[in-house]
């Protein structure tokens, strides 16, 4: 199908992708690309990565049939790929382990990372501790205030959390600041990006380390269904790392794929993070992609109840899969996500992350439109412990 030739040798997914960064770090991207290509063709590296995923993060994660949730909604059966059961509570650790092993292989002793809600920051701090690396995490002042618990976790893990006060003081500015720091310390520092964004080869590398989600799903599902593939696969999309990892083995197969963006208060308001539905072509954080911006090119601040989807850009491969119509991208509001989260809680006993709740919400709509003998797989990218505060603020009244 469409993706056999992407990315090309210049790191392009169609027109998207590329390397839009200051000249000072171009050599580091080349060095990284060479080291990455060498590593993924090295049997020993791959075995080590698989081993760490198994004995440190607890993979493979289960594929759980959501019996009562499916029954409640009618239509197709819903299966949950349980990335929430990973060490540290989300899929982020897959990529963090992969990049940290690469950093060690390249002889780098320092890592830097950006974080929004703090999940990637926690994953980065975790692998830094495990592999004996120093770790600086850049986080917007506003996010530090909203996610005090994760800030404390990162510090417990030995990481230094650096407050970012530039711009709007959120994930986009934390990423700018991490890139600025990387430009200054590029000779001995590894930049551990948390999503399938950034200059090439980052989008490719993050996909490589996240595709374990899709591969496990495929083998678990086909084993249970006599070789048959699922009838639809759904994942939420902020930067897009869990989605690209989940979609990876299915892109070339005849399986409908759905990415779910955050519609916040609605895509017709100015309070959303629906980059593909409402954004336009532009450059953010080193990559040509779709983003939320003014006509003049000033990047605007997105909004979603879910901090992990609250990002004005999206990985370049998603922009490409959107343009080629291989993946259908839908948007789900705060309200719909909250309802799905609660429904999953009471029917399955699973509290998922607010990000993942967007995917769950759309899978319910989808399942209802399908037949009983069909199956939808949803990537449950993370668990909801981190969101309990937000949930108490929003929904607390109901439970008092």
């Amino acid at each position, binding site marked *: 199908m469409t993706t056999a030739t992407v990315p090309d040798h210049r790191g392009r997914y169609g027109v998207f992708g590329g390397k*839009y960064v200051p000249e000072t770090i171009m050599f580091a991207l080349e060095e990284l690309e060479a080291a990455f290509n060498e590593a993924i063709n090295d049997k020993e590296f791959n075995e080590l990565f698989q081993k760490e995923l198994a004995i440190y993060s607890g993979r493979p994660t289960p594929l759980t049939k959501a019996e009562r949730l499916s029954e409640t909604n009618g239509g197709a059966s819903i299966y949950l790929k349980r990335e929430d059961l990973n060490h540290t509570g989300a899929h982020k650790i897959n990529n963090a382990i992969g990049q940290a092993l690469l950093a060690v292989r390249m002889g780098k002793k320092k890592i830097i990372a950006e974080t929004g809600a703090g999940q990637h920051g926690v994953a980065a701090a975790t692998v830094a501790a495990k592999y004996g690396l120093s770790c600086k995490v850049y986080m917007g002042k506003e996010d530090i205030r909203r996610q005090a618990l994760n800030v404390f976790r990162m510090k417990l893990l030995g990481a230094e959390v650096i407050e970012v006060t530039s711009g709007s003081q959120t994930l986009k500015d934390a990423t700018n600041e991490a890139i600025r720091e990387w430009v200054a310390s590029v000779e001995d520092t590894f930049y551990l990006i948390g999503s399938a964004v950034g200059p090439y080869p980052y989008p490719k590398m993050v996909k490589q380390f996240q595709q374990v989600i899709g591969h496990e799903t495929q083998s678990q599902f086909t084993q249970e269904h006599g070789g048959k593939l699922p009838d639809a696969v759904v994942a939420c999309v902020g930067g897009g790392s869990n989605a690209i990892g989940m979609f990876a083995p299915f892109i070339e197969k005849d399986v409908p794929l759905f990415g779910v963006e955050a519609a916040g208060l609605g895509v017709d308001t100015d309070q959303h993070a629906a980059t593909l539905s409402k954004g336009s072509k532009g450059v953010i954080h080193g990559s040509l992609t779709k983003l939320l*911006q003014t006509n*003049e090119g000033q990047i605007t601040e997105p909004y979603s109840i879910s901090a992990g989807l609250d990002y004005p850009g999206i990985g370049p491969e998603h922009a490409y899969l959107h343009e080629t119509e291989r993946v259908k991208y839908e948007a789900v509001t705060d309200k719909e996500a909250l309802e799905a989260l609660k429904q999953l809680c009471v029917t399955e006993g699973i509290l998922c992350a607010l990000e993942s709740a967007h995917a769950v919400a759309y899978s319910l709509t989808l399942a209802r439109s399908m037949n009983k003998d069909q199956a939808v797989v949803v990537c449950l990218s993370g668990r909801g412990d981190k969101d309990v505060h937000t949930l108490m603020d929003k929904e607390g009244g109901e439970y008092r």
Partner: protein
Amino acid sequence: MNKRWEVFQNSSDYRFVPYIMAGDPSEEATIELSLALEECGAAALELGVPYSDPLADGPVIQRAGMRGLAQKVNLEKTIELVSTLRKRGLEIPVIIFTYYNLLLQLGENRFLQLAEENGVDGILVPDLPYEESGYLQEMCSQNNLALISLVSPTTREEKLVKISSEAEGFLYCISSLGVTGIRSEFRDGLDEFLRAAKANSHVPVLVGFGLSQREQIHQFENSSDGFIIGSAIVKKIEELEDELLTNREEAIKTFKAYLESLLPVYSR
């Protein structure tokens, strides 16, 4: 190459190229600051465009960008400012310093048309490395506009040779890793890097990033053809913000006095 670049390139002076942000703290202030800079010896002028996400800039220029944004200055308005500068007598080359996303949204063709109409001489895009600049480079050549290239101490040798030999307007040598900002020290081996750039370049080789004092400028006299100062000047403008808005004449006097204390005698 146009007449203004010819004068710039044929000059035997050690060239001073300042950077200021358009609209900081107002469009009229930008005009008068530019004229003051020329009067104090600037050989060319870099005019920054306010941007929400300036990832190659340190805090000083980030704040200047916020002030420019508050004045609703955009890429188009910045280009149009150049036309006013020309009417007010500015004769030195003007380079528009813009992030790539702003250029993309305006459209490269529209930019080139506006640049020509308004007397712009060059463009510098800090997040468009050599590898991604092919199309813009070609369009600029066709339109007689210099696309200013940057090289860094981390640039590989064969690439340094290539960029240096193809450079137009001037070659911008980044004197330290990191973002723009004021620094007290520079890295070792810088002279060697500058000499390698100079050996391959047909245009003046300028050193920039971090310079803020006369002694630092003297340090590079023998290995380069000039220097760029951004953050230190922008910081002075920040200090003078209120005065520039209320008592501009006095503020410009103070600004000129600052430039005289900063610049080597021969570049004035």
